[in-house]
């Protein structure tokens, strides 16, 4: 899929809707002998590869599972500290699964709020008059597009850098959202979008006389023929 994620952020920087829509990130599971050729370090609540790279394991990958048992942050499935476990030769050979860490919901909230501030700073540091905040942010693996409405809501889409037509997608998402915000009297503005009608049902499109199925509509918009 060429669209990776959609985030909707309210005026205060709080995340009110989030959708991930991409293939699973690269993971690799290998058996290692002592000593481990990779340098590991703790970071936030995970154990990451700091240095060393082989067979698909890259710097920045996290330890996801040991001997088939998923790790719980910095501790193994059965409660032992991962770094201690991996520094004792008695525990080798060991099979470790590495991969790009998935974002937890807390992290997504934090990143949405971070982007909200970066957006504003982009405008403040502008060398030209009357600049908006960050509208497009480009990296070598994805392109982030942001549309801020006059009411201060931001729609953020992460897509493949070569994907075209994102502006149209952003406008469409805005339409769907505004239908939902205007027409559902039970939705309080700025609050997370959480209604059960939003989950499930893949292929539904557009307005219907029951309340618009916003989440499914947003998913459908993201997977529409717009994507390659």
């Amino acid at each position, binding site marked *: 899929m060429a669209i*990776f994620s959609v985030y909707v952020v309210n005026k205060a920087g709080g995340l009110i809707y989030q959708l991930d829509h991409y293939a699973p990130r690269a993971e690799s599971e290998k058996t290692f002998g002592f000593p481990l050729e990779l340098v590991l370090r703790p970071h936030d609540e995970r154990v990451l590869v700091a240095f060393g790279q082989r067979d698909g394991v890259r710097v920045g990958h996290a330890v996801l599972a040991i001997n088939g048992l998923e790790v719980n942050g910095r501790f193994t499935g059965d409660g032992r500290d991962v770094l201690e476990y991996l520094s004792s030769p008695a525990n080798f050979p060991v099979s470790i699964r590495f991969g*790009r860490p998935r974002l937890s919901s807390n992290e997504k909230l934090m990143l949405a709020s*971070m982007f909200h501030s970066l957006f504003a700073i982009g405008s*403040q*540091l502008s060398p*030209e008059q009357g*600049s*908006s905040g960050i*509208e497009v942010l480009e*990296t070598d693996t994805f392109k982030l597009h942001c549309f801020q409405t006059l009411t201060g809501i931001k729609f953020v889409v992460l897509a493949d850098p070569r994907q075209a037509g994102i502006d149209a997608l952003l406008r469409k998402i805005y339409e769907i959202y505004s239908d939902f915000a205007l027409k559902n009297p039970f939705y309080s503005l700025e609050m997370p979008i959480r209604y059960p009608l939003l989950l499930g049902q893949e292929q539904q499109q557009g307005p219907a006389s029951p309340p618009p199925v916003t989440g499914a509509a947003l998913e459908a918009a993201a997977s529409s023929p717009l994507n390659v």
Partner: protein
Amino acid sequence: MTVHNLYLFDRNGICLHYSEWNRKKQAGISKEEEFKLMYGMLFSIRSFVSKMSPLDMKEGFLSFQTSKYKLHYYETPTGLKVVMNTDLGVGNIRDVLHQIYSYIYVEYVVKNPLCSLNETIQSELFRSKLDTFVRSLPFFSARAG
């Protein structure tokens, strides 16, 4: 098309150099605060981008644009950061930023034993070579007014 301004930061966040050619609006804060804010923003963008990316990255953050300007970013493995703001018509200028690093910074600062690294560049030669280089870029044109 034009170049608005350029910042050079070292790995510790110290602003080694700043030049402007076509800047219509100041940030409204002192230059030191502006450098700190710019560096802080770039630091956060890099962290943001590495968490958000669905795939392993090689070059990482490249550029961003707003409705009025585009910020281009280039970082060396030694942590030196070249940041150039241009107008929106300019495409990918990573190789230009690399040239600023290799032909100007390395030649006139690193190879000059009298220039100490890790502090603002005093060398007038560096400043003038950089200025000539930027003015000669095909996308630089001094705008009237």
